[in-house]
């Protein structure tokens, strides 16, 4: 949960990158760390194995002046995507304010995407938070690869809820739409706490219409 320190005029928000293993969560943070002005960020802390798989979490603190008169501190975390690390994901989700769900666009990863999203819903529910209450956006990552599902299929699979959210076609290795998705969730989050908050007004319409795909490639299951 965010907190305001009126003496130091600081507000803190926690944003978590969530998604299946090897979907590009850490790559997102690495790109942001590389590209953002060093004056506005701290060190990127990675608790990873020797083969660079996230073991605990990655953490990147960012500062911004986005609310008049306050320094806003955004704390970006990733979760370990591997199924066995669910206890760690629950821990990292504690006090979360916003989520960026990173989906792997490759056909063979579709089942893992769906499982991870369901896992996110379950873990939020354990904190008595509904996915529909929390500011979140979707990233469809790895759009530069060949064996990828079309966006409307990903929308059908992951963004087919009563409340639909913004989604972004992302290539985290080159940075395409990495900042766009971070800025989107930050704005939704900030407006959630404003006196005139109405998230539906601040969230633009989704980018694609959810339709049943005509043909599904072999290997993709939902």
């Amino acid at each position: 949960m965010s907190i305001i320190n009126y003496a130091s005029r600081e507000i803190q928000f926690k944003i978590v990158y969530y998604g299946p293993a090897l979907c590009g969560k850490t790559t997102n943070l690495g790109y942001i760390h590389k590209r953002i002005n060093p004056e506005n960020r701290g060190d990127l802390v990675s608790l990873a194995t020797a083969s660079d798989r996230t073991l605990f979490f990655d953490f990147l603190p960012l500062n911004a002046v986005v609310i008049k008169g306050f320094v806003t501190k955004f704390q970006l975390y990733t979760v370990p995507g591997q199924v066995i690390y669910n206890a760690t994901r629950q821990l990292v989700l504690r006090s979360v304010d916003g989520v960026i769900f990173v989906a792997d666009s490759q056909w063979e990863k579709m089942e893992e995407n769906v499982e991870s999203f369901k896992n996110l819903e379950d873990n939020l529910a354990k904190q008595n938070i509904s996915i529909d209450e929390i500011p979140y956006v979707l990233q469809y990552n790895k759009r530069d690869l060949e064996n990828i599902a079309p966006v409307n299929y990903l929308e059908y699979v992951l963004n087919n809820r009563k409340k639909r959210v913004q989604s972004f076609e992302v290539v985290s290795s080159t940075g395409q739409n990495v900042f766009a998705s971070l800025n989107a969730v930050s704005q939704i989050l900030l407006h959630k706490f404003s006196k005139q908050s109405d998230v539906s007004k601040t969230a633009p319409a989704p980018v694609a219409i959810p339709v049943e795909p005509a043909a599904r490639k072999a290997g993709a299951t939902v």
Partner: protein
Amino acid sequence: MNAIPCLTIQDVANLDGVLGDFLKKAEAELTVVIDRGGNVISQFGDMTVMDVTIIAALAAGSFAATKELARRIGEIEFNALYHQGNGNHIFMNSVDDDTIMITVFGRQTTVGLVRFYSASAAQNVGALLKSLQTGGHGFSFDASDITAAPVFADG
């Protein structure tokens, strides 16, 4: 509209009073009160030597990671953790179900002294935070106060 929990200037002064008194008695360098999600609630002492935000995130993780270890020996959690370095050390103790206190200290004091005074400091911090929760003051801002420009710029 959702209000953000708010520490007023008086709340911060009250917390600083408790933490300052603790640091003086324990002869430690820095103390930070955090929630279990890793957010910094209050801090006092020499903050120039380290990034408190990162210390808070890692300490919250460290505390939570050992919870499972505690369960294995029949405890709910460890009330306190001590990380011993060659010259600088970290002592962490639980304030309540939502809050942890972290103390960084060097050669000029001992873990025993820090541990002794941190117990009463944690009690006082816990009481102050409880009074904040029951006081129930929150903060929200006008939508016009939020910048329309992108929050973060690429490059």
